[in-house]
């Protein structure tokens, strides 16, 4: 900032004016997005008899609902489902990002025949409605004896996550200054070394962004998991949907809200961890050469 003493007050006033506008619009968006989560948490911490109480702030605080959510006596096993989700999401993200990085590198950097065709196919795959795949996949996995296995969840999830990772990474890699790769090669690096030591560190912010997106998409996947999993491998989305209370005729809303809160926590933690990496990567990458 090259603000001189004379112009500083004027500038500040202008900036606060803009600030109010952006705070207001930002606040609206945050409210819009977070209100359902807020209500989920309010109900989760509220006594079960007050579930339908509409007081907008937390009242009748209790942890009973969490105890109920984690209780395994009624055939529920939330922690196992969280573990399943973590496993499926982590493996899916890992493989999708690994494949995505290599494919994106090829699409962004190499000239080969059929590049446009491959790009088109990937785009088409991401446009395909998932619901249309449920029946064929069920058939396929039944024949293969995969129903109720982890791979039955991981393999389709990878194919959903890949177009996303490939598209975001290709766009990012395309904009990297490739002179850097050439510099590395002249400095004595093989193509592989140049990629690993120069391009990949610079692409880290994009890699982490796509990893988060892929992880969240997989974590939230419900449709396929509801058909292809069995209770021992089911992810949290399915587990919560099947949540059973003491009385089979009453939906245990409060316990479901508590389960939802528990399930959101790992996501928030993961995003926070990776977000720090993203910000760190962005500042380190001040490329403008």
């Amino acid at each position, binding site marked *: 900032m090259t603000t001189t003493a004379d112009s500083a007050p004027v500038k500040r006033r202008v900036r606060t004016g803009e600030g109010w506008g952006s705070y207001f619009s930002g606040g609206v968006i945050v409210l819009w997005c977070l209100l359902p989560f807020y209500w989920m948490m309010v109900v989760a911490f509220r006594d079960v008899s007050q579930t339908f109480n509409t007081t907008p702030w937390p009242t009748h605080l209790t942890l009973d609902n969490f105890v109920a959510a984690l209780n395994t006596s009624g055939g529920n096993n939330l922690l196992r489902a969280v573990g399943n989700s973590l496993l499926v999401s982590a493996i899916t993200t890992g493989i999708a990002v690994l494949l995505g990085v290599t494919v994106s590198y090829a699409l962004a950097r190499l000239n080969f025949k059929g590049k446009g065709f491959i790009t088109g196919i990937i785009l088409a795959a991401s446009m395909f409605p998932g619901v249309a795949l449920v029946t064929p996949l069920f058939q396929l996995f039944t024949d293969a004896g995969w129903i109720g296995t982890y791979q039955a969840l991981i393999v389709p999830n990878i194919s959903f996550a890949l177009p996303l990772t490939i598209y975001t990474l290709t766009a990012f890699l395309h904009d990297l200054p490739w002179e850097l790769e050439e*510099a590395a090669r002249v*400095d004595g690096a093989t193509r592989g070394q140049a990629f690993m030591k120069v391009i990949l*560190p610079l692409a880290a912010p994009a890699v982490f962004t796509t990893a988060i997106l892929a992880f969240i998409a997989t974590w939230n996947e419900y449709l396929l998991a509801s058909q292809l999993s069995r209770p021992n491998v089911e992810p949290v989305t399915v587990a919560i949907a099947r949540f059973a209370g003491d009385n089979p005729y009453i939906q245990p809303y409060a316990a479901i809200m508590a389960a939802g809160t528990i399930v959101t926590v790992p996501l928030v933690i993961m995003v926070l961890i990776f977000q720090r990496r993203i910000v760190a990567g962005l500042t380190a990458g001040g490329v403008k050469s």
Partner: protein
Amino acid sequence: MASITFDRVTLQYPGAERPSVSDLSLHIDDGEFLVLVGPSGCGKSTTLRMLAGLEQVSEGSILIDDTDVTEKDPKDRDIAMVFQNYALYPHMTVAENMGFALKLAKKPKAEIRERVEEAAELLDLTEFLDRKPKALSGGQRQRVAMGRAIVRSPQVFCMDEPLSNLDAKLRVQTRSHIAGLQRRLGVTTVYVTHDQVEAMTMGDRVAVLDKGELQQVDTPRVLYSRPANVFVAGFVGSPAMNLVETEADAQGRVSLGGIALEGRTVEPGQRVTVGVRPEHLRPAAEDGIEVEVDLVEELGSDAYVYGTADLEGSPLVVARAVGDEIPEKGSRLRLSAEADLLHLFDTDSGLRID
């Protein structure tokens, strides 16, 4: 230390109408500073990139010290390159940038540090070794890029317009710095630029390229005094040489505004181009070319006079005027030059006629 030979090198991109570089033969001696110069799109950068191994040669071969490197990977050529945009690794510190090649070569850490510090001292970068490139000014980044090349003590330096991102003053400073450094280190250097002043001031020899073809390669003095063709004549020198088309008389003699080019006869009636440098035109009392002054550029020590000549096709001419003889805008004057200092070219082929 190495010599470089381009042996009939051609590069044509698939689908391109004409080659980017065609049939280039050039020998560069050990320790020589050779400048490749030409307008944009002339193939100078492509030539350098072929030498570095970043472009695939279509035909011909490139030798470094009698070793054919045409098919070798960049990493196996022992060449250091300075890029136009420096191409510093943004995630590494200055020291890591400079030591990257040595690290890849698996040199011991102590040696890397020693060599990096040595180069940093040479380039006045010692206090910046722990900084990232983004915390450096343009001139400092340029020096880091140089340092990265120097640290390796390679066989050959390739420099691709390394000064084009600097401001005018820094460019002149760095120009002499690089030339001095190269003489001290004695590493064979190929330097690409589009700036003919840079080319003339830095190079032991200068190779002028146009449309992918080598026009002339010689010392700056010879390029200036004996350009091989019209293109070189017009490209070298600032302001550019005046080139006037005319026709030889029935005896095959050529004259320009009353100045006869003695001893150089051509075919009767042949179309020729006569060239005269602005600094060789002098005001004359009697004969010479009559010029109406359109514009005068005062530079302090001297001035450039732009005018329209009373010759066939009323060509524009530039002359340098010195001291008190600076004419007024709109005035008319006569300009003459010594016949020895006129250049004669065949208009059709563009080649020099002696």
